[in-house]
């Protein structure tokens, strides 16, 4: 059965279409793989029975000649997407028993296309984190280990359960969400592909909100082609999300075809940080060479406000989070403190007991920067910085078609290595966060191994709604990198 689980989404799709395998067989193989991989803690909720029932229904649809674009393909869903009748926790105690009566638009699109749900993957609480260690359901363990080491490493975050599940062959592909790097960073440190689409491409309806002007759902996959296939089904124009953009969804699998001859690839000079890890810098240079060899033109560009992106993000995102998370009050849904003596006590203790430390920290930051007397100094200034950051990209994209950067400052790190200092954790997103602030699409592709034998990712950034060109460039990097490494399956031993 190991052949079944190591297939790509495209391979499985074609094998199902050729009736070489059934969805039942394929889904059964993943259910078994998930049961054998519990030491990774990639899933908060496994839905094996439902998965097998969905697979049977899919096989019947196929037999009746009614196969959808993702017919019979088993996927893992980040536990931030509401799934009707299946517990959706956002990895928080405050939503620990929440069973949504409705389905998110993105997941509904997937089921409409025939996909099968294997379960809900672990994440940082409310998607706030870069290591999965803020989850109220215990951290995920990265399937990868450094050379000659048994140390447990983080799978990145916040979509760390999804990245680990894809890397460990526990699903064909997974969904993620990305507010400051939460798809691309975990993809980078697990040797997988992660795509954050343009803001507005995937509906946010039914996704537990973190920072509404930055949040965007996207695919996490084994290949760039798989990302194109999954995005085509995830994306839609949704009247239920006022920021869902009224642009028809193209067939990204078709759009990504073709050579990159003449493509202008920008290298932003500000991303070459002082003290950058030598293996990260070397891989970046090598990747520029790969694209040049395929006929691309390499141009140096400048994004002068890059260094201000992270501090801007740490005002804007907590500000939005503090208002989004105001809804958790212990009254209408979610955790409720026992024996409140009045209404304020009910609110304060439900929230104090229900939210974890990082979420509380961000609610306090957000409340502070929006409070009277501080709004102009912090929030209003950050909104202006955001305009400047977006203008940087607008200017750069007059001279190039895509940008090439590293995805992360380094490879996966050990559990507990960065939990003492919030700032050190925040720096994980230094290369990814600019993209969210500017609303652009970005993708991380496995590029090679670090000095200690762990995956390193390369990030490509595209123009708004130009995912086609972005995927085409990413495929060129993927082909040249020829990343065939897989983690040893130590967890099944």
């Amino acid at each position, binding site marked *: 059965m190991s052949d079944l689980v190591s297939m790509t989404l495209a391979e499985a799709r074609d094998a199902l279409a050729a009736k070489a395998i059934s969805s039942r067989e394929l889904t059964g193989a993943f259910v078994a793989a998930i049961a054998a991989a519990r030491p990774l803690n990639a899933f908060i909720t496994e839905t094996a029975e439902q998965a097998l029932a969905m697979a049977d229904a899919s096989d019947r649809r196929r037999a009746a000649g009614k196969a959808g674009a993702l017919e019979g393909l088993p996927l893992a869903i980040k536990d931030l997407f509401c799934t009707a009748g299946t517990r959706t926790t956002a990895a928080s105690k405050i939503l620990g*028993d929440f*069973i949504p*009566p*409705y389905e998110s638009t993105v997941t509904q699109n997937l089921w409409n296309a025939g996909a099968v749900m294997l379960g809900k993957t672990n994440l940082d609480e409310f998607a706030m984190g870069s290591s999965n260690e803020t989850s109220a359901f215990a951290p995920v363990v990265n399937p990868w280990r450094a050379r000659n080491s048994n140390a447990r490493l983080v799978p990145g975050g916040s979509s760390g359960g999804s990245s680990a599940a894809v890397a460990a062959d526990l699903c064909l592909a997974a969904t993620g969400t990305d507010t400051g790097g939460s798809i691309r960073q975990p993809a980078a440190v697990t040797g997988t592909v992660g795509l954050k689409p343009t*803001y*507005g491409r995937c509906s946010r309806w039914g996704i537990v909100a973190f920072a509404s*002007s930055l949040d965007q759902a996207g695919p996490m996959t084994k290949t760039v082609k798989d990302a194109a296939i999954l995005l085509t089904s995830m994306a839609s124009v949704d*009247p239920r999300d*006022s*920021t869902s*953009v*009224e642009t028809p969804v193209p067939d990204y699998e078709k759009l990504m075809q073709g050579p990159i001859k003449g493509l202008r690839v920008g290298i932003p000079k500000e991303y070459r940080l002082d003290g950058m890890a030598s293996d990260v810098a070397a891989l970046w240079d090598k990747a520029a060479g790969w694209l040049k060899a395929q006929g691309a033109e390499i141009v140096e560009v400048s994004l002068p*406000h890059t*260094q*201000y992106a992270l*501090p801007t993000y*740490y*005002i804007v995102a907590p500000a939005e989070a503090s208002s989004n998370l*105001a809804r958790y009050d*212990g*009254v*209408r*849904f*979610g955790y*409720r403190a026992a024996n*409140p*003596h*009045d*209404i304020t006590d009910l*609110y*304060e*203790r439900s*929230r*104090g*007991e229900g*939210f974890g430390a990082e979420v*509380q*920290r961000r*609610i*306090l*930051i957000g*409340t*502070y920067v929006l*409070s009277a007397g*501080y709004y102009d100094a912090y929030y*209003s*200034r950050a*909104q*202006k*910085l*955001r*305009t*400047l950051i*977006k203008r940087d990209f607008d200017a750069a994209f007059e001279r190039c078609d895509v940008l090439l950067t590293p995805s992360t400052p380094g490879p996966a790190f050990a559990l507990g290595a960065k939990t003492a*200092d*919030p*700032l050190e954790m925040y720096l994980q997103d230094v290369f990814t966060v600019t993209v969210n*602030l500017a*609303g652009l699409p970005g993708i991380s592709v496995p590029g090679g191994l670090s000095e200690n034998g762990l995956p390193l990712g390369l990030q490509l950034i595209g123009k*708004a709604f130009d995912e086609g060109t972005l995927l085409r460039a990413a495929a060129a990097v993927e082909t040249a990198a020829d990343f065939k490494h897989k983690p040893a399956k130590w967890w099944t031993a």
Partner: protein
Amino acid sequence: MSVDKDTVRRIAKLARLAVPEARLAPMADELNGIFKWVEMLGEVNIEGVPGMTSVVAQKLKWRQDEVTDGGNADALMANAPGGEEHFFTVPKVVE
């Protein structure tokens, strides 16, 4: 600007978040570390720069003002802690 224990207590009150007394001082230290870092934004000239209100060029959508959903009281109450019939319950508010 520096945040002290009393400021943390005040913003925790605004956020309706119970922060134990023993956590106030450590939280102030954590927040100060972050606010100190954020201060670098002060060095940028933002004269005449408009604040970003929309990250993609799109007008906010309009729709007909009509009922498109509703009548789901049972579903709405399904997750209510301590909800009774079709009522959310809270501690007594009016004496």
